[in-house]
């Protein structure tokens, strides 16, 4: 048999036959040959469209389907409904001839499958806001829908935390609360101010750490501090497991798409139209968007061609320019961090109770928010000058903004920790940290509460910012554009766009704040849940009332992986902060752990109660040798998975090659067959 050229790439098979045009008589014959109609791949198409199939072959088609695997559910068959019903009837007839055991087994399978489907439907019916999100998807596309789905996911996560904290922390403390040591009457006059800052009345309520005292539940292994610790640790582990699972699933999905998916025009052509669009405006917008995207892709292609033609001098100039711009980005970042530092400094220097001080107490969050609003937009502008392709620009802006958000939060926490007292970690070189330690030691009874207050302030401030941006920025802008469309101002401002990236980053940021603060402000998940609920309605109002559908939507599959990954980064950062904080605070002031040396000492009493073998096992597990063994085992497992992944990738390539070869083999055989048939008929 003649073999084609051996240079096989998985994109094309270059053979002598492949450049034939479709107009040649050769190819028409190919589809009309009898044997082509009998091929199994043709038989999966609808019988009405295969006009060349004769009637007896029709019968053969139907008979073939009896052999269809009964374990494949009928609804997955790609044949018309009448055929499915016929197959089903035939299966029912068959049931009478097969034994009762088989029939019972099959009916059990069906009932089990139906039950699973019903349960799945019931669970998905419980998801709130389905209709609203569906409407939003129809009007604004898949990208905005992804934001709301992410919001709903975070809401569910926070509700779960509330349940855990309620069960393990709040209820035991409330039920077994000891004698109240409060002698002074709560000062209700400054409640309004306290709501925002978390001091005064609020400080002694369940919101902050100091409320959770040991109480009367005082067993060795069952006491409120232990339950508190268990609750917090389980929150962290649960978050890790759920987030890692979500990230990995999304990453696997985008990894399967392979290396060559950067600007895949075929995806945009074939899966570009969103079939759930129902309004004419959204449809015309989608068409515009598709057209713009295709134009963008063609530009990118032209861009790549241009890149290939760059001379050496142009490259050198471009690289220098890019270095300059990156330096500018770094300068902006350092400048913003210095601003945050000064804001904290100012806040620390003001300790009286005047309104001015309350305002100053909000200065650090205000600075952070302003920076986080302004800088990503500056980054977008900068990346336009760097002369990268569009997808890389988008990803670069995303990465810089993520870095900015998380780094600014961690810098804030770092300076807050260091500005507080003589903490050894912050002593750079010989210069001792002399920021007024004595003053703080005398007035602060409970350092944990201070930290909790900071996180509480950040959360409240995020909510206020949501209100502000919706009602004082977005709505007036829409109002202006609608009522005075021809004014200069309206033309300059333009219509609102729902900035998906910035909003998702905002969600990630607030969730990180919640994780950092949950140990010291146990009601923070509840506050966060309320906040997310309110945020949903605010954002819904913004989107439906104030926004025009975005001109530039992003592909959810590839970017949502990045968002879940940043959530994971935020979680990691919060765990590190928690560990640092636990080490730095001397317990003994307040809260469930006073009297113990470290937070984990509450477990010592419980450990004493265990039998000897358990004690020795625990001491072995927490020793260094075991950690070393664990790390080694993880390395081995990881290596095996990585090599398996590599082998799979090679198999995929090989299967693609096989696919190519089989198609050409089939084509060749069909041609041979028709030639032979023709030769046989000719001598007549």
């Amino acid at each position, binding site marked *: 048999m003649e073999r084609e050229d051996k240079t096989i790439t998985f*994109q094309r*098979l*270059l*053979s002598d036959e*492949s*450049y*034939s045009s*479709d107009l040649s008589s050769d190819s028409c014959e190919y*589809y009309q040959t009898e044997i082509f109609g009998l091929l199994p*791949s*043709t038989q999966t*198409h*609808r019988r*009405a*469209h295969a006009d060349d199939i004769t009637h007896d072959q029709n019968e053969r088609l139907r008979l073939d389907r009896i052999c269809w695997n009964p374990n494949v*559910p*009928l*609804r*997955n068959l790609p044949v*018309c*409904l*009448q055929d499915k*019903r016929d197959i089903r009837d035939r299966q029912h007839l068959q049931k009478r001839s097969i034994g009762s055991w088989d029939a019972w087994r099959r009916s059990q399978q069906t009932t089990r499958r*139906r039950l699973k489907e019903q349960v799945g*439907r019931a669970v998905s019916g419980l998801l709130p806001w389905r209709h609203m999100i*569906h409407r939003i998807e129809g009007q604004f596309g*898949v990208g905005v829908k992804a934001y709301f789905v992410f919001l709903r996911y975070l809401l569910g996560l926070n509700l779960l935390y509330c349940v855990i904290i309620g069960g393990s922390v709040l209820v035991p403390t409330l039920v077994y609360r000891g004698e109240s040591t409060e002698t002074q009457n709560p000062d209700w006059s400054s409640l309004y101010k306290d709501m925002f800052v978390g001091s005064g009345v609020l400080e002694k309520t369940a919101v902050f750490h100091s409320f959770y005292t040991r109480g009367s539940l005082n067993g060795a292994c069952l006491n409120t501090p232990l339950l508190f610790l268990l609750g917090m640790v389980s929150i962290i582990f649960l978050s890790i497991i759920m987030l890692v699972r979500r990230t990995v699933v999304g990453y696997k*999905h985008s990894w399967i*798409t*392979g290396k060559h998916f950067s600007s*895949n*025009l*075929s*995806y945009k*052509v*074939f*899966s*570009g*139209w*969103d*079939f759930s*669009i*129902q309004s004419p405006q*959204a*449809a015309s917008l989608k*068409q515009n968007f*598709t*057209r713009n995207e*295709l*134009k963008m892709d*063609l530009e990118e*292609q032209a861009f790549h061609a241009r890149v290939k033609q760059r001379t050496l001098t142009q490259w050198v100039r471009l690289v220098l320019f890019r270095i300059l711009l990156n330096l500018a980005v770094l300068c902006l970042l350092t400048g913003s961090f210095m601003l945050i530092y000064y804001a904290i400094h100012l806040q620390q220097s003001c300790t009286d109770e005047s309104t001015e001080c309350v305002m100053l107490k909000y200065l650090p969050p205000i600075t952070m928010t302003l920076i986080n609003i302004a800088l990503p937009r500056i980054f977008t502008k900068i990346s336009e000058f760097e002369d990268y392709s569009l997808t890389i620009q988008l990803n670069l802006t995303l990465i810089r903004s993520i870095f900015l958000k998380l780094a600014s939060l961690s810098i804030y926490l770092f300076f807050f920790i260091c500005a507080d007292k003589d903490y050894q970690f912050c002593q750079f070189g010989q210069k001792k940290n002399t920021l007024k330690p004595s003053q703080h030691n005398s007035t602060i009874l409970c350092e944990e509460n201070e930290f909790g207050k900071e996180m509480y302030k950040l959360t409240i401030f995020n909510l206020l910012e949501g209100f502000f941006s919706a009602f004082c920025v977005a709505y007036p802008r829409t109002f202006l554009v609608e009522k005075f469309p021809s004014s200069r101002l309206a033309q300059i401002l333009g219509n609102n766009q729902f900035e998906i990236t910035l909003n998702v980053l905002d969600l990630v940021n607030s969730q990180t704040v919640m994780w950092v603060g949950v140990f010291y402000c146990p009601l923070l998940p509840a506050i966060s849940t309320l906040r997310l609920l309110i945020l949903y309605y605010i954002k819904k109002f913004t989107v439906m009332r104030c926004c025009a559908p975005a001109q530039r939507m992003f*592909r*959810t*599959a590839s970017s949502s992986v990045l968002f879940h990954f940043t959530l994971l980064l935020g979680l990691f950062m919060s765990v590190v902060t928690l560990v640092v904080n636990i080490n730095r605070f001397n317990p003994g002031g307040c809260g469930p752990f006073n009297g113990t040396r470290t937070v984990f000492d509450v477990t010592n009493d419980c450990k004493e109660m265990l039998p000897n073998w358990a004690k020795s096992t625990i001491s072995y597990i927490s020793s260094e040798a075991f950690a070393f063994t664990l790390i080694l085992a993880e390395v081995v497992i990881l290596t095996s998975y990585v090599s398996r992944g590599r082998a799979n990738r090679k198999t995929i390539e090989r299967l693609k090659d096989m*696919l*190519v070869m089989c*198609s*050409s083999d089939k*084509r060749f055989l069909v041609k041979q067959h028709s030639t032979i048939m023709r030769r046989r008929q000719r001598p007549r």
Partner: protein
Amino acid sequence: MGNKQTIFTDEQLDAYQDCTFFTRKEILRLHGRYHELAPHLVPMDYTNDPDVKVPLALIVNMPELKENPFRNRIVESFSEDGQGNLSFNDFVDMFSVLSEMAPRELKAIYAFKIYDFNVDNYICKEDLEKTLNKLTKEELTPEEVNLVCEKAIEEADLDGDNKLSFADFENMISRAPDFLSTFHIRI
């Protein structure tokens, strides 16, 4: 179990439930929608499987399909005669495949049929050009259309015959991350 509906027999509803991704309630709702399209044509009593077909022109005016540029091709692909006249079986089948519970392989098969305008089991360049023009409302210049079609065929064509067979199409669409979420109509 509570309402005594007289549109279908229980046996028919069971059959529909097994052959599609819909529940009994949804099938009854679908029948209501089907009836709305042509109230004088579609009987309310389907117990004896009447042979009634709603013409293409009425179906493509449904709100779910009205704004879809491929509405004609969608309805034609699911009709038995290829002309777009749907019986109730075909109607249910169409929305079943387009629902969110249908698997990727099934959707890929029907997507291929929809994009194959000249029904030759291959997506050739003319099919692609028609697809593209419908997608962008003919706002691309002919050179751009040509470039896009060539690039798309080059990306997906594996056996080098300058058109996409079903194997090429399926291989390409299985890598498309948004296919399942965009190829979905909620009814």
